């Protein structure tokens, strides 16, 4: 447990050692605000709600989360520090969790910095703060799931660009699997059970129920089990490929 904390702390400091972290946060804040106001029509709707803000999160995360997570293991492998890390008295699981938590905390910090949006709607009207809180929790969980996928893809390669592309691709598949366009295609070639299975894996549908203010245990379990599954896969891959 202590080693998880030590690794997470080191990793988090490493994020802020370069300007990348600040650039990321600025891009996230700027783009999420721009999408909300210009594409989402925040003012035109004349509603004190943040659903236009949260609607774009899956699409924003699709690119931003792989950008945060691509370095997690690829960089260790590239610089050879993976040999240092894996010969410390730390289990691979602890290292995987520590690194994940650091990146997740970083994303949480970026999300927390969107608080002015929440303040704005509270000044302009009387929003349902319960729904907004649920949406923040849902957004963070979804980010965690995207991040766990990226962590796994990052463990596959020593090239961060490859890790980013793999991460974004897999995240894209999990996002798109709930879109009607994709489901139509699946329906044409597969039985109904498969269609349901594909649809149920969609980040989009699970996230949208949460942002409507319905905290369904199934949605929470979905995101948490996604995180657990991909981190477990990361552990296996790191162990199997660390020496290669």
């Amino acid at each position, binding site marked *: 447990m202590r080693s998880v904390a*030590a690794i997470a702390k*080191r990793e988090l400091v*490493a994020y802020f050692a370069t300007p990348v972290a600040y650039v990321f946060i600025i891009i996230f804040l700027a783009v999420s605000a721009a999408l909300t106001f210009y594409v989402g029509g925040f003012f035109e709707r004349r509603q004190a709600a943040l659903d236009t803000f949260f609607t774009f999160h899956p699409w924003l995360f699709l690119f931003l989360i792989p950008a945060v997570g691509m370095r997690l293991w690829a960089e260790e492998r590239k610089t*050879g520090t993976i*040999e*240092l890390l894996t*010969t410390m008295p730390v289990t691979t699981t602890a290292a995987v969790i520590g690194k994940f938590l650091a990146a997740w905390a970083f994303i949480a910090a970026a999300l927390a910095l969107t608080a002015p949006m929440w303040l704005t709607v509270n000044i302009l009207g009387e929003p349902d703060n319960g729904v907004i809180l649920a949406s923040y929790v849902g957004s963070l969980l979804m980010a965690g799931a995207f991040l766990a996928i990226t962590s796994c893809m990052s463990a596959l390669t020593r090239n961060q660009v490859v890790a980013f592309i793999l991460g974004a691709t897999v995240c894209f598949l999990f996002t798109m699997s709930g879109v009607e366009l994709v489901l139509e295609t699946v329906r044409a070639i597969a039985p109904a059970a498969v269609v349901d299975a594909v649809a149920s894996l969609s980040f989009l549908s699970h996230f949208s129920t949460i942002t409507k203010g319905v905290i369904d245990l199934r949605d929470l379990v979905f995101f948490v089990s996604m995180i657990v599954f991909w981190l477990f896969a990361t552990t296996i891959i790191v162990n199997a490929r660390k*020496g290669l």
Partner: protein
Amino acid sequence: MIVMDGLSKHFGPVRAVDGLTLAVDKGEVLGFLGPNGAGKTTTMRMLAGFLEPSRGRAAICGFDVATESIAAKRRLGYLPEGAPLYGDMTCAAFLSFVAEIRGYRGAARRQRLAEIVDTVALGDVLERPIDTLSKGYKRRVGLAQAMLHDPPVLILDEPTDGLDPNQKHHVRELIRGMGKEKAIIVSTHILEEVESVCTRAVVIAQGRIAADGTAESLLARLPRHNAVRLVVPAGAADAAAMVLRDVATPQAVERLPAADGLVTFYVLAHEGAAPLAAVAHGLHAHSIEVDSLGVERGRLDDVFRALTAPEGARPEGTSPEEARPGRAGSGHA
């Protein structure tokens, strides 16, 4: 403290390490020698728990490196090849991180960090990012990382690689100083290092042990080890040959062709002892002019080449038969 039993690592069809059996005890500094690709780094990586052995087992202080890896890693300090480090961290932050991972807390951590910074002389660069340091400092940070928890076993992969002579000297002093209370394995290409810091040398070639012994016992494998080397002007060569015939058997005397007006003789040692006094006495009695006279120790480089070079590339004066060890590889020859 370090035990390897039939340790093997195969990468596909390539046998990088092939049945290594070795034991290193407390107080021993083992020099691990071998050409590039002989399996040194692979062996060390298995000991450090970075690679899993394909066959056989290895243990650090009685803990199997594969099945009790965390316990083994706690007792081990490891400097990986090339000393990889987190370059964007400062020295102080990096060592503090290692101390935390190694279980040091609070005041004990501060004290231990101060000690180790003092030992490897890093005080001047503590607040600098590791990426900006010179190679020598980086290697010292790597050593500090390995020695931080004062482990009973140290495995150092080329600790002096790329250092200048002063830094090499410093690192060797460090290793020698620690050698008495620890079991240490040091891999190196530099054979003088073996003579200056190691109590024992193991030569590996193609993943197997080719020789195991002290630097002196390795030198003794050379046919000309402890031979008397006599150089006389070409004019006095025949007279000198007569003298040598009196002090040694004809088989023990080698005469090399004349070069630059000088002729070199080797009088091979008899039962390990150099017949220097007899040769000097004979030469003196016949008033033969001598260019130089001395005892040939031989060079570890020659032993190394004899043991590891491919056929046809062996140095003069050695042959595979003569150089091949009697008890190589503890039964794995």
